């Protein structure tokens, strides 16, 4: 069946991130001058304004900063997933990213719970970084 949920719309800033996801790598910009790892991508470092940058690969480990549980589908394609969890994960390297928590029920999720990336290949072109409880291995 065709994938009916919204897909990423990479732009000049975010394309390297989504290209990385396709290879199951979480890529972030790291400032070559001050070492700050940033998300979302930007032309300069928001801390020191340096434009010297490299892309690094994050470990995929982090913890749940916060989360919510959807009981109502704002988009038809998510109806079958109800109730589903969206979360902000604080990665070990610093950035916060918005994602889904999978592999556990909404009653089991907690703030600060350790999680690790769980890749979902949704189309030929795109893989989504979702997260699952770290102890589920």
């Amino acid at each position, binding site marked *: 069946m065709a994938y009916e*949920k*919204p*897909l*990423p*719309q990479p732009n000049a800033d*975010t394309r390297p991130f989504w290209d990385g996801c396709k290879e199951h790598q979480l890529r972030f910009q790291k400032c070559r001058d001050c070492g700050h790892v940033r*998300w*979302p991508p930007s032309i300069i470092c928001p801390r020191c304004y340096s434009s010297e940058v490299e892309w690094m690969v994050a470990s995929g480990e982090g913890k749940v*900063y*916060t*989360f*919510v*549980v*959807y*009981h*109502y*589908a*704002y*988009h038809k394609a*998510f109806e079958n*997933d109800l*109730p*589903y969890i*969206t979360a*902000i994960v604080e990665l070990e390297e610093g*950035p*916060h*990213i*918005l*994602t*889904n928590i999978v592999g556990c029920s*909404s009653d089991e999720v*907690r*703030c*600060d719970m350790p999680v690790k990336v769980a890749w979902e290949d949704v189309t030929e072109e795109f893989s*989504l970084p*979702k997260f699952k409880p770290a102890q589920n291995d």
Partner: protein
Amino acid sequence: MGLKDKYAIVGVGYTPQGRVPGRTALSFYVEACANAIKDAGLGRQDIDGLICYRHFQPASGEREVTPYVVAQQLGLAPKYLSQEANCARSQLHHALGVLEAGLCNYVVVAYADNALSSDRIPDETNPENSVFGQFGYPASYAMAARRAMHTFHTGPETWKMIAVGQRQWASLNPLAMMRDRPLTFENYYSSKWVVEPFRVSDCCLVSDGGRAYIVTSVERARDLSHQPAVIIGIGQHNPSSYIDQSTYMAGPTGAKIAGEMALKMAGINLEDIDACEIYDCFTYTVEVTLQDYGFFGLGEGQDWFKYGTITPGGRLPVNTSGGLLSEAYFMGLTPLTEAAMQLMGRCGDRQLGAKTNTKEPEIILCSDNGATLQTHSCTILRRF
């Protein structure tokens, strides 16, 4: 500081509100502005500034509402026009700036929409987020509220007192959308989840209608229809980060610094405040805002709200029109115009003072915030 006691709100414009089908957003803007101008005892030739809040995507067949179109329909040719694009809450600051600079004498500030009855579905979604099924403001504020539940002692036990307290005020307001819909703690818990931890009763209304006010100098206000509501303090602080990246979900939000600025300008303390009109897009917003202003310590809201603190008869009334939760949604104009009307003594059955067994209002503090706690504006008004 220089702006204290120099400027005042001198007129408020209402429109039919709630579910009002068959009207364009523009028509509500025009009606709200015209009513504010008439309410102040002014004519269109007097108005030389017009400032609009942002406008969401227009409904099908309607054009985007811009301030020059509103001006055209009001027969105005203002010396200052502006519109905020995406949830910065600087409208009053702009108005005071052009008044203080001598560019204008009477400025109208307005917001209107036909959000409830039109076919428009607001699309505020970041494409990176919709991929994961994250849509809209209830979810992003719920993210903040969940983090607050983790960081300090809060949750539905606190928020229910905000939802119920404001509904009690709405029951006294003939214009309130929820006037005839009493809310008990039990009803609160049985109201449906929207995005957990928020229930329907935690979320603001979607409304048709508009609201506007007129601001001018206290000197000019003396010649107008009503006793003016005098601006004694303003402050603004904008932490700016997208909520996804923010670390201030559980506070301090922009309210902390904005509140300190406004109190300092006014030369008063929190003890001098008789009531608050707080931007209440969600119940949690009211809690974190009052907490960041310093009315109670971190996580002490649950005790502070107890025993009807904010309700009719309470010691610090909050959102006396019913607010965005129970009156109607007109951005920061719902709270600010209610403060002005209370200080003018024009609030009928919900009037602060003997009628509602509350303090006679001398000073009211108002807030307005935008996006997901990214922008914040605080305004303190006093009776003339």
